[in-house]
């Protein structure tokens, strides 16, 4: 089922956008319910995957914009990462998460999902040049945060 196939990706997108686990669960429900109820017919697996990315990002943004979120501050705004995660991975993730939201998105889509800048521009509905700029800028910021050694 689609949940098995895409849950890791949706989980990572949630991590990029959201701060706690309860919200993640909300997004999961929103995204997969939308998938089940939608009448979109997908041309290919790639199409379906891109659909999931777009819907998840939109769901996260809607969620952050919602009245409740903007007026109530959660007490547990601590990033929940697996405790047993090795130190260097934790360091990288924390660096990524410390970037502004739009930089986090492109970093994830480019470095993890392997999309090219034009593909990202299509998924996010932004201009290709914007994506290039974001990528370059994000790379610089990461290099600064992580001390630059070994990262290109």
């Amino acid at each position: 089922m689609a949940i098995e196939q895409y849950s890791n990706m949706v989980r990572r997108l949630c991590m990029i956008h959201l701060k706690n686990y309860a919200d993640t669960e909300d997004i999961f429900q929103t995204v997969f319910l939308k998938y089940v109820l939608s009448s979109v017919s997908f041309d290919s697996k790639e199409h379906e995957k891109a659909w999931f990315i777009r819907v998840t990002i939109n769901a996260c943004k809607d969620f952050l914009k919602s009245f409740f979120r903007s007026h109530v501050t959660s007490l547990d705004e601590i990033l929940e990462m697996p405790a047993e995660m090795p130190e260097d991975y934790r360091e990288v993730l924390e660096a990524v998460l410390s970037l502004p939201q739009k930089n986090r998105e492109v970093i994830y889509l480019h470095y993890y999902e392997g999309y090219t800048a034009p593909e990202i521009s299509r998924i996010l509905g932004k201009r290709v040049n914007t994506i290039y700029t974001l990528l370059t800028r994000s790379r610089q910021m990461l290099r600064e945060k992580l001390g630059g050694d070994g990262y290109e």
Partner: protein
Amino acid sequence: MNDKIKEAFEQIQAEDELKQNTKNFIFDKTNGYKKGKAINYHRLASAFACIAFLAVGSHWLYFTPTVEISIDINPSVELDVNRFNRIISFESYNDDGQKLMDSLDIKFMDYSEAVNQIIESEDVVSLLSDGEVMTIAVIGTDNAQSQAILSNIQACTAGERNAYCYYAHSEEVEKAHEAGLSYGKYKAYLELQALDPAITVDEIRNMTMREIRDLLSALSGGGNGGANRPGNGNGRQNRGNRKR
């Protein structure tokens, strides 16, 4: 940096609990409705099942014989009629019958037309004018259709002096087919056998109905039989009595 970021993200996995909760939620919300190929497959399967059922059903409806018409003069033929009064198959029980069938194209024709064609075919007309006897047996299972066909054929053959029409139940006919005879001849064979146990099926098969009838009257009438036809009127009456 690429690999490092990728590996770091790889550490993030959706928790089983999260997946399970989402599944439960979706299931609750949709009453177990499933998206995707499964549904198309089911629809397709049921559509095919319907089509197959209709095809098999209509084939069965059309190609199940409900009434048989057995015609014997010397050519012995049987026509299988379906519930729509169409000839779906025919069988000949001797060489003359085969010849007759080869000369006519009656498949899928309405039975009354087919019977007319047979009665009016050259062979049959010449046989009848030579004084041969024709019997037409309508074989069915006591339903309205067989009654209708019988009365229809009786009307058709009303002009023929030597034609006999009667009705028979399909159970009797099975025995006739086991003996390799058409029903009209089988019936005559049973009558003959009662009088002369030595008679065999093979002798009967290629005799004309006139010969059989003469033999019958010769045996029963104690030698008064012969070329004249005293039996005709009686025959018709007897046949009438046997109607069901």
